[in-house]
């Protein structure tokens, strides 16, 4: 009889120990989760980067956390970022929701939907203002992806959802090849 009680209490103790240990592991896991990289970006900075005339291409993607097709295509951009030279294919995933969403919305969103690349948060910027710096008409419907060449010339504009293949085709047509197949 005593033996059974003894055994049961040992088993209970072991279970409790395991539970505490797993909670501890979970907590550590959460802490070690990478902080998402978010850069603020102004309209003038976008204008400058298009005008820089650096070799390679610039991809600008305008997106919002509330836009389902935008969210769906983010991993495609993540793959492009991993596959191509970061100097030759300069990727700017620009969220248009403004700094007020940074802590409450964007950070938790990027923790849940981790990306290998930095994300840019636009300061201000109505569609009309963006049209001027992007040098093209935009309807305001998201997502929008615009690709510029080294001369700052617009070479492709997608309004609506796209895939990795759509982007890769443009990259290939403009002499870009992946540096790794991962």
């Amino acid at each position: 009889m005593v033996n059974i009680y003894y055994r049961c209490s040992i088993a209970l103790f072991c279970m409790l120990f395991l539970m505490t240990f797993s909670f501890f592991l979970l907590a550590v896991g959460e802490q070690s989760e990478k902080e998402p990289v978010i850069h603020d970006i102004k309209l003038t900075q976008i204008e400058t980067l298009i005008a820089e005339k650096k070799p390679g291409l610039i991809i600008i993607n305008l997106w919002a956390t509330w836009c389902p097709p935008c969210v769906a295509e983010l991993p495609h951009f993540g793959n492009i970022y991993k596959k191509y030279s970061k100097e030759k294919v300069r990727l700017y995933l620009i969220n248009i929701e403004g700094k007020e969403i940074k802590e409450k919305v964007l950070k938790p969103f990027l923790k849940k939907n981790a990306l290998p690349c930095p994300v840019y948060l636009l300061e201000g910027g109505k569609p009309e203002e963006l049209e001027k710096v992007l040098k093209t008409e935009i309807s305001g419907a998201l997502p929008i992806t615009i690709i510029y060449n080294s001369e700052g010339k617009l070479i492709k504009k997608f309004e609506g959802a796209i895939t990795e293949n759509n982007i890769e085709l443009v990259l290939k047509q403009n002499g870009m090849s992946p540096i790794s197949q991962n």
Partner: protein
Amino acid sequence: MTKTNATKKSAIIVSICMLICMVFGLTSQIKALNIGDPMPDFNLKDYDGKEHSLTQYKGKIVVIEFCSQECPYSRGADPDLAKLHAKYSTKGVVFIGIDSHFKTQPEDIKKYALETKKPYPILKDVENKYADKVDAKVTPEIFIVDKDGKLVYHGAFDDRKGPDGQPTEKYTENAIEALLAGKPIEKAETKAWGCTIKRVPKS
């Protein structure tokens, strides 16, 4: 001498003609519908099968909202549109929603409208024909038509950046206020973020 003069003259005439063609070509390409143009009529059914046309509302200010229940940003504007409806529907302003999303069926619209207590009719734009006619691209996208049936405002509902965002400029309300006061609309054309109108896929 006279020959070169004639050549010069014809060259000038040709280039002027080309210039005129270019200008006309460009302006016609830029926009199908301009502020001040008569708003094209529609004949569309609401989710109960009742037909509505723009001409039946002649003499009233009509606020047309291209909307989509599939679009969080469009849904975000709904409570504020309902408030505007409550404020202005007694002052001769008619509100109409148009759903052009190719997948959304009248019964889906009805379910959503009843659930969210959308206070005005939502019409089904089958095969996005009316959206094509007026070149509507985004949800929500607002067209305001004056008592004479002319387009007086086109663009964003307001300037918020997300479904729950706080607007700094209430474009639609400002336009209605100006119309009711008989004043010119300060911003007759605006743009805003939104979802693309999901049109019937081209085969």
